[in-house]
């Protein structure tokens, strides 16, 4: 059997599903565009900035992540059960999906390549401190690292530490500081 290039196999599958009326190309293009351009880490950044500036919102966010992010309009596929874990000076949280790539899409968009990589998925559980250091995040030896394994039941989301020097910042000034990697727990927010 000859091996058909995967792009052609995908195209073939799409044609057949469209011809059979199972896939509406307009709906499909809408989904692709949405995840290419609209849904991304900026959503999560807005949640973080609000939590940093509104203690009551932060309490709600830690209590029920799904409901609190829905307050800002962020919901949808792969966001059905979001649990927010808070970084502190003593505890650093990092997120993985050891089995596949479960990830809070409504807050962060689709996962980046490193998150899906077999090496990350296997190693961050066994040697998180080393993996984080390799990714550029050096944590002091006395900082405890918690690794959270996402699944279809629970998608973890990290509330990073607010950086020093941002005391007077508004939500709008804070949000751009919050990168995707900080909300997966593989980086620190820099002022």
């Amino acid at each position, binding site marked *: 059997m000859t091996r058909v290039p995967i792009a052609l*196999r995908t*195209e073939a599958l799409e044609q057949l*599903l469209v011809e059979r009326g*199972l896939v509406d190309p307009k709906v499909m293009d*809408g989904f692709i565009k949405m995840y290419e351009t609209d849904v991304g880490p900026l959503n999560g950044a807005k949640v973080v900035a609000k939590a940093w500036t509104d203690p009551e919102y932060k309490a709600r966010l830690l209590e029920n992540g799904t409901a609190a992010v829905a307050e800002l309009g962020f919901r*949808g596929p792969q966001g059905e059960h979001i649990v927010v874990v808070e970084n502190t000076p003593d505890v650093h949280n990092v997120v993985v999906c050891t089995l596949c790539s479960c990830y809070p899409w409504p807050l962060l968009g689709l996962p*980046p390549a490193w998150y899906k990589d077999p090496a990350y998925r296997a190693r961050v559980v066994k040697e998180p401190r080393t993996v984080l250091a390799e990714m550029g995040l050096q944590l002091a030896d006395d900082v405890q690292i918690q690794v959270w394994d996402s699944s279809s039941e629970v998608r973890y989301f990290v509330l990073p530490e607010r950086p020093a020097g941002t005391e007077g910042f508004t939500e709008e000034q804070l949000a751009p500081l919050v990168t995707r990697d900080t909300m997966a727990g593989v980086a620190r927010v820099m002022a």
Partner: protein
Amino acid sequence: MTAALTVSLDVDGPAAPPRSNGELVFAEPWESRAFGLAMTLNEAGAFEWEEFRQRLIVRIADWETSHEPGECFSYYRCWLDALEQVVVAREFVTAGAVQERAAELAARPAGWDHGHDHGDHGHGHDHGDHDH
């Protein structure tokens, strides 16, 4: 899940869209098509997401235990394999039909997609009913 479609953001402004945080979402166009197919079928109620996810988990695990040394991991290749398994299991299409169509597409003459004034003629094969 049309609710998700209402989630939209400023496309410009101080807080730039997702790309300001890193790489492109899809490395190649077919990856976006494979992603879109799964999303669209699931949204239309054609299968349960968990059904797909379980097959994806198995495909990824299979790759990890059986890939050639040096072969790069392709997440969306596993994704497409899992999707194909779901649609075949659900009897939406047969594996043979996908192969056959892919072979037809592979037989397109070079430059088939250059210029849009060719219409449907000249391909030497029939793509079936494209009236959609």
